[in-house]
């Protein structure tokens, strides 16, 4: 009988301590905190923050950080120009229609003419980023089908974007073009919070049977066909597009009323990137670009010839009222054909192993959240180990804090600052390792930095020690209480 009564008494005492804790005993208990408790609590906090993404703040911040990184460093300075000299875009614009005094949409025959004038310049391949789906009466359809034949005879691959959101049984491309042997590709792109930052890895096969059995998106299909010597990495998840910003100088020839140059001092770029990102955006697309009317003139323009010869040329349109534009982090609103061009540029530049939102280690593919949780564990262990050293010192010299002079106070603050710098440096190091070894993009590891800084702050203010002290006090009680 006495034991249950004692248990009830202990529970009642514990309950009374929840509301009225003994602060002195809590402080003493906090100095006896277990190192495993500190590490486990911080790992639990990091997991909660990374996995659950409360209020969506983390994902918003991650993407914004990637945009800033693109505008500040990657785009203007680091992104190599390997792919830029292998890809071009031939664009139909309002000015094209005005110059040629033509309406829109063009009939198939006009597109056939444009494609034929491109073929004369010996491109490596051509990707038509226009959908030819609707069953409209047009006597010139045979001309376009004939153009498919000419490309085949010339040995130049010709790809057609095919429709993906059609009713059951509808063909993704005009039957006559399919019959002529047109290669179809899936032109789907991804929009993340209104911006084009990622690119799909998988797409529809449209009845074709790739050698590797995998149906890929537009850029990946073209890359797989044209770069067999640099095979695609086993990609899963999504591609993270790295946007270049250094426009091909030949493009600037068409420009009036502005400059495509992005040159400015790094300090100014940094200032503007934070306080006026619009001002540091590139005003011209990264990919080499020429107007389609230059092709139609047949005037042997050397710049156009150089931008077409032995390059993969995207043939697309940028017209008001034709809703095929995308908002990109470095350009603002541009024709979506440039998204495909940039994705292919990434694949060529990174030799088939682009940045991704997943990390693949051997046969195992980790989502970015799990990769970040695993990546932050060593940071937490190091910070916890250093923190425990400080706790043990304080436990040995409890009065030291009360005897501080001004110098010690300043030193203490400097140490706090250094503590945060350490947390930042450790997280940054982990992030760079993730990028360089596993190809995980900035947006997919930058949260390690944010969470590490929060954890650094929590350890600085001894939050896990305080929780330990409180729980220990509630569970066990102060020695004086036990005596009474």
């Amino acid at each position, binding site marked *: 009988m006495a034991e249950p009564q004692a248990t009830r008494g202990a529970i009642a005492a514990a309950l009374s301590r929840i509301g009225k804790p003994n602060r002195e005993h809590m402080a003493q208990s906090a100095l006896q905190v277990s190192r495993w408790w500190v590490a486990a609590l911080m790992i639990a906090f990091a997991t909660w923050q990374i996995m659950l993404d409360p209020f969506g703040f983390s994902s918003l911040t991650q993407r914004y950080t990637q945009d800033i990184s693109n505008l500040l460093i990657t785009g203007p300075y680091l992104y190599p120009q390997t792919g830029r000299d292998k890809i071009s875009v031939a664009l139909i614009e309002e000015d094209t229609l*005005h110059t040629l005094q033509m309406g829109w949409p063009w009939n198939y025959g006009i597109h056939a003419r444009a494609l034929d*004038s491109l073929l004369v310049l010996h491109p490596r391949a051509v990707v038509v980023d226009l959908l030819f789906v609707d069953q409209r009466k047009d006597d010139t359809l045979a001309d376009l089908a004939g153009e498919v034949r000419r490309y085949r005879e010339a040995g130049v691959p010709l790809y057609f974007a095919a429709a993906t959101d059609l009713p059951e049984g509808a063909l993704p491309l005009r039957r006559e073009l399919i019959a002529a042997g047109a290669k179809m590709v899936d032109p789907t792109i991804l929009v993340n919070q209104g911006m084009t930052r990622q690119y799909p890895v998988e797409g529809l096969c449209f009845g074709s049977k790739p050698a590797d059995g995998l149906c890929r998106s537009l850029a990946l299909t073209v890359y797989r066909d044209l770069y067999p010597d640099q095979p695609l990495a086993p990609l899963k998840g999504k591609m993270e597009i790295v946007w270049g910003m250094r426009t091909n100088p030949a493009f600037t020839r*068409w420009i*009036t*009323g502005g400059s495509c140059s992005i040159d400015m001092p790094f300090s100014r770029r940094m200032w503007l990137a934070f306080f006026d990102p619009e001002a540091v955006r590139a005003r011209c697309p990264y990919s080499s670009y020429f*107007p389609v*009317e230059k*092709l*139609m003139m047949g005037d042997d323009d050397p710049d156009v010839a150089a931008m077409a010869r032995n390059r993969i040329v995207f043939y697309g349109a940028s017209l008001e009222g034709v809703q095929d534009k995308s908002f990109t982090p470095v350009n603002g*609103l541009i024709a979506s054909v440039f998204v495909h061009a940039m994705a292919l540029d990434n694949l060529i530049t990174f030799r088939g192993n682009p940045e991704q939102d997943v990390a693949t280690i051997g046969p195992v593919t980790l989502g970015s959240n799990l990769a970040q949780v695993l990546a932050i564990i060593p940071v937490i262990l190091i910070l916890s180990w250093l923190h425990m050293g400080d706790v043990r010192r304080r436990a040995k010299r409890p009065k030291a804090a009360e005897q501080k002079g001004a110098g010690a106070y300043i030193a203490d603050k400097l140490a706090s600052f250094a503590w945060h710098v350490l947390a930042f440096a450790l997280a940054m190091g982990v992030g760079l390792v993730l990028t360089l070894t596993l190809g995980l993009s900035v947006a997919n590891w930058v949260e390690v930095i944010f969470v590490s800084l929060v954890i650094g702050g929590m350890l600085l203010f001894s939050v896990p020690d305080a929780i330990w002290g409180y729980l220990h006090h509630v569970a066990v009680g102060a020695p004086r209480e036990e005596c009474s």
Partner: protein
Amino acid sequence: MTRKFLFAAALCLLPLPAAASDSCANVAGDVVLSARTPEVDLYDAPTGKRVNIVKRDAFPACLAIASRAPNMMIQVMVNGSLVWVPPHMVNARLTSKKPAICRNLAMGTGDSKVSATRGLGEDCPAQQKSKP
């Protein structure tokens, strides 16, 4: 002897490029000199359909250009009928002015876009015309 022969041969060859460019000198104005691509498409209208395909060897030379369409198509008389040929398929001597090509940084200008389709446009700004 050999040297003299080579010199004479060189003298004979010298006028050849000039002769090639002057091969259509008897045709005044704009003229299609020859076929440029292995096949030349013949159209019934500037934006019409293809009515015939002529192999390079069968395409007649020195065709006087009857007219030029705004979309750059060239009208010539082939085998007794007026047809249109795309300019990229032929070598031509053209004296008419080509339209200026210019872009006013319509792309990448930020967060706004025009929400109406343009009807008619204007030429390049006079003070900033680019080379055609």
